[in-house]
């Protein structure tokens, strides 16, 4: 069974600071990592491979230094990596086309796995877009997978409903954070990953003349004006002061 896992390099939000004056996020110099839910996708791929054999290819669109993060995924258990160097001003439309073209170039695949969304922008567009471009079925928000020779069955969290969906191959599946606990690679695996191949393709070699259909023209700060009145002395007094304040605000109900 051949599995392709799409993985995105994102800024590490826990390291991100906000400019205190403008409230805008400061993105320069923030360390980067693989989006957490993409690691859940890889963990699921490894489980499938353990049972059914096959090969796991990591596919990333990103800057040249994304190779470092791909190595981490190879250490976890993927067999090889493909890095497509991304053009400037890339949007979801361009990313999805490059992924779909790269997948066609990789050639043989049964399952494509993605995270339900990346943790930085949380759009969740890439999986369904790629499935649409490749004209294959999509199974979104998978909570668990059962892989058999001729079909895969997924339990899905669709908000109001829990839905069980089955599909033949090839199929694109997006997974949730709850599907598994991604493994940490051992030192031996980390060392071993150095010998696994990472191919680098340019975006132009896959599809030239790509233009963004959506452009982020501004990143605004989010003002959060709060009173920040904190009571921290005697507990009984704090409780009384709080109730007094809430009564004044008129929010305590009847």
């Amino acid at each position, binding site marked *: 069974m051949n599995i392709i896992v799409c993985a995105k390099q994102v800024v590490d939000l826990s390291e991100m600071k906000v400019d205190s004056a403008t409230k805008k996020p400061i993105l320069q110099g923030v360390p980067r990592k693989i989006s957490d839910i993409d690691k859940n996708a890889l963990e699921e791929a490894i489980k499938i491979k353990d049972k059914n054999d096959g090969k796991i290819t990591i596919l990333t669109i990103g800057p040249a230094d994304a190779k470092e993060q791909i190595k981490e995924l190879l250490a976890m258990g993927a067999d090889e990596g493909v890095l497509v160097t991304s053009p400037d001003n890339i949007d979801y439309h361009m990313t999805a086309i490059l992924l779909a073209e790269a997948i066609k170039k990789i050639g043989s695949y049964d399952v494509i796995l993605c995270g339900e969304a990346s943790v930085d922008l949380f759009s969740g567009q890439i999986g369904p877009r790629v499935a649409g471009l490749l004209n294959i079925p999509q199974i979104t928000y998978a909570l668990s997978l059962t892989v058999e020779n001729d079909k895969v069955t997924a339990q899905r969290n669709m908000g109001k409903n829990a839905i069980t969906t089955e599909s033949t191959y090839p199929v694109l599946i997006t997974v949730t954070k709850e599907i598994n606990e991604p493994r940490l690679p051992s030192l031996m695996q980390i060392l071993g990953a150095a010998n696994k191949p990472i191919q680098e393709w340019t975006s132009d070699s896959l599809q030239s003349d790509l233009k963004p259909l959506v452009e982020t023209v*501004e990143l605004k700060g989010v003002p959060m004006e709060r009173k920040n009145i904190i009571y921290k002395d005697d507990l009984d007094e704090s409780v009384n002061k709080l109730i007094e304040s809430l009564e004044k605000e008129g929010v305590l109900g009847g």
Partner: protein
Amino acid sequence: MKLPMVLVYSDNKNISLEMIGKAVELAKKQQKKVIIPIIGKSDENLANEYISYGADQVFMVETNLVSFKAEEYVDILADIVKETGVGTILIGSNKNGKELSARLAGKLNAGCVVDSNNIYVKNGKLIAERIVYSGNAIAVEQFNSKPAIITIPSKAFDPLKKDENRKGEIIQKQIEVNKSPSTIVNVQEMKTEGVNVEDAEIIVSCGRGFKNKEDIKIIEELADVIKGKTIGCSRPIAADLKWLSEDHWIGLSGHKVKPKLYIAAGISGQIQHIAGMRDSSIIVAINKDPEALIFKSADYGIVGDLYEVIPKLTEAIKSKKG
């Protein structure tokens, strides 16, 4: 006949009505029309309701599809878009709507912005704003081409006033659908406790500061003495520990709420949680860690052990109300 301008679609009636309101506003400026398909069973009452709330044309697409599959619904919407030359597509941002819009965007080579609650035209370009970086920034996204697809969460916009006299067309449509090789085997309602946090006026919420599932009852007792009685929680309580069902979950991936009063007890205040409750009128935080992030997002706070603070708060309110 002028071409219809804005297409609205959701399988949820309320979001549809809210989106029609926004669509009318966008279409009015350009003298275009608002169209909305109903997919599945023919429903004349629903069609007339959509018209009375502002839709110009309702496309009744009768199908024998048993359940929603994005692959198949995309065929239907793509067909309508191609036939009518729609420029703007608004889709309800529930889970079905999101996977539908993204696949449709792939198929149509269209730009797409999900979860937008602010849409406008500036210098002739359609702009949609959305929250990114776990609630820490607003991205202003500009469309360079048509069609433009935008998904809209519930309660982002208000529906127009209902007008029974408003006229519109109902058009029957036959659309061929390529059957997807996937099968829906089972549909089961998610385990819920019938809680609707999105409509609540007062929410008392719990997080990892609670040591045991049983302890949540002290939150219930507090909620009980205040009007509202709704319990919320952060991600770990619903998704990891499963002490409460997911209808209680407030946050970026859970529910987004805007009550008059939000009390966060034992919640550290991760940005993902803040993203779900930042629109509350008054936020109260109870946490024993004076450095907890939640205090930065709170109007009022008490630094203290929630196991002491909450019972005291409950008693004090109870005696006050007599």
